[in-house]
């Protein structure tokens, strides 16, 4: 019978404490909006901060509170935006998938080095040593700080220049922030034509340090039918909102620093007007698809 007392005492304590906790969980129950965990589930969960919030949880919180739009997650893209919109009961505004793009073609073949760099493989360190080993002061140094900061394995250094895999890229912007040369930009994947140079040097200097640098001649701007190209600080830039990816500038560029991914795909077809017609068709199909999706999500609601 000696065992009975301790068992009762400890067991009783456990029972009382259990009861207290059970009651307390009712009294102190906090109303968590059930949409928050639902949204967190839809989000990719990478906690990359690409949306501008501290992580996926913080973003979900902000969406439910109405402080953030449903399509701010660059990683989840349109699919996540639609799901969040469905949870929140609103229609998602269409968001175009974006991806990082390296605005430099300064590969080891196209440009030279000024000195032999033997430091750590880190762009920030190299940049402090007289602006890096490459002869172009504005170009990619190819030491791979962007590669190491990318959480999605979407960027790698090939031949001395960083290259982005647009399939894997989620446009979180980590590489853009770390690049000391600012040669990476976030652009919509639908714009196929890019000025692959960031050099603000005068044309003559650019020509001496790089085979494919933009010399700011302005031929592209003159030939652009949509007036989407401006030349500023000796480098051309394309306004992706106006650009229709016709590829005329890429064909006319004497330095071959404007690259059209569409032209590369159809390198066998030299006639650029054919490209034009092809270019017009796909966007219409995309618009139609988007319209279907939106009406579909509405009918779901």
């Amino acid at each position, binding site marked *: 019978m000696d065992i009975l*007392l*301790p068992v009762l*005492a*400890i067991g009783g*304590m*456990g029972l009382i*404490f259990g009861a*207290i*906790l059970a009651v*307390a*969980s009712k*009294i*102190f*129950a*906090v109303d968590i909006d059930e949409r928050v965990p639902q949204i967190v589930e839809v989000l990719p969960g990478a906690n990359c901060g690409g949306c501008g919030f501290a992580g996926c949880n913080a973003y979900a919180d902000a969406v439910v509170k109405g402080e953030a739009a449903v399509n701010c997650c660059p990683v989840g893209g349109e699919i996540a935006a639609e799901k969040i919109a469905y949870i929140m009961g609103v229609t998602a505004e269409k968001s175009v998938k974006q991806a990082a793009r390296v605005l430099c073609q300064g590969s080891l073949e196209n440009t030279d080095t000024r000195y032999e760099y033997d430091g750590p493989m880190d762009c920030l360190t190299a940049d402090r040593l007289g602006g890096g080993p490459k002869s172009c002061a504005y170009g990619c140094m190819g030491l791979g700080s962007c590669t190491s900061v990318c959480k999605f394995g979407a960027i790698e250094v090939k031949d001395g220049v960083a290259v982005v895999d647009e399939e894997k890229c989620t446009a979180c912007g980590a590489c853009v922030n770390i690049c000391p040369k600012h040669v990476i930009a976030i652009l919509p994947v639908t714009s196929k034509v890019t000025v692959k140079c960031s050099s603000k040097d005068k044309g003559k200097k650019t020509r001496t340090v790089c085979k494919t640098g933009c010399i700011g001649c302005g031929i592209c701007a003159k030939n652009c039918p949509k007036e989407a190209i401006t030349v500023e600080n000796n480098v051309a830039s394309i306004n992706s909102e106006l650009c229709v990816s016709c590829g005329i500038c890429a064909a006319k560029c004497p330095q071959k620093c404007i690259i059209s991914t569409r032209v590369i795909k159809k390198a066998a077809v030299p006639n650029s007007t054919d490209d034009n017609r092809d270019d017009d068709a796909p966007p219409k199909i995309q618009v139609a698809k988007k319209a279907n999706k939106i009406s579909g999500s509405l009918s779901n609601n």
Partner: protein
Amino acid sequence: MLKELLIISLSAILIENFVLVKFLGICPFLGVSKKVNTAMGMGFAVIFVMACASALTWLVQQYILVPFNIEYLQTIAFILVIAVLVQFVEMFLQKNIPVLYKSLGIYLPLITTNCAVLGVAILNITKFSAVSGSFIKSLVYGTMAGVGFTLAIVLFAGVRERLESSDIPKFLKGMPITLIAASLLSIAFMGFSGLKF
């Protein structure tokens, strides 16, 4: 009485520092001391829980264990009390003081398994059960043991932040140099044992 409490406080913070002299609660001491801010958060959570646990375990000891003559069940009973206490406090804070709940964050539930808390509860009983005013003394000792823990972990976090940026031989990087630094800090605190009143 006041002088006595002062002596108890000083000895709990410096002479019998829980981490550096008694080597209790080493796990959070090494685990959560990478940044001063998080170390502060952990420290305050420990102060809070230790104070509450000291009071509650004293009551359990006096009114349950001693009358039924089952002091040998002290450990299991105290673990039960501390676990329940932390759970309860967590719920209470989440509802009533969400700011504090957010700043303590993950550290609050972690403390359930912190041996320093159990240590302070048991030490309270062995130290003060036979003297007068044992409740208030236990409470002060518990709180000040938490303050000592905070002092140790914040000091150590400062050391570790400096270690991050210093040039350390490769074989010492990480945990080895951390443990060496901890032992040096511990030796420094051992010096307080010469403090006499």
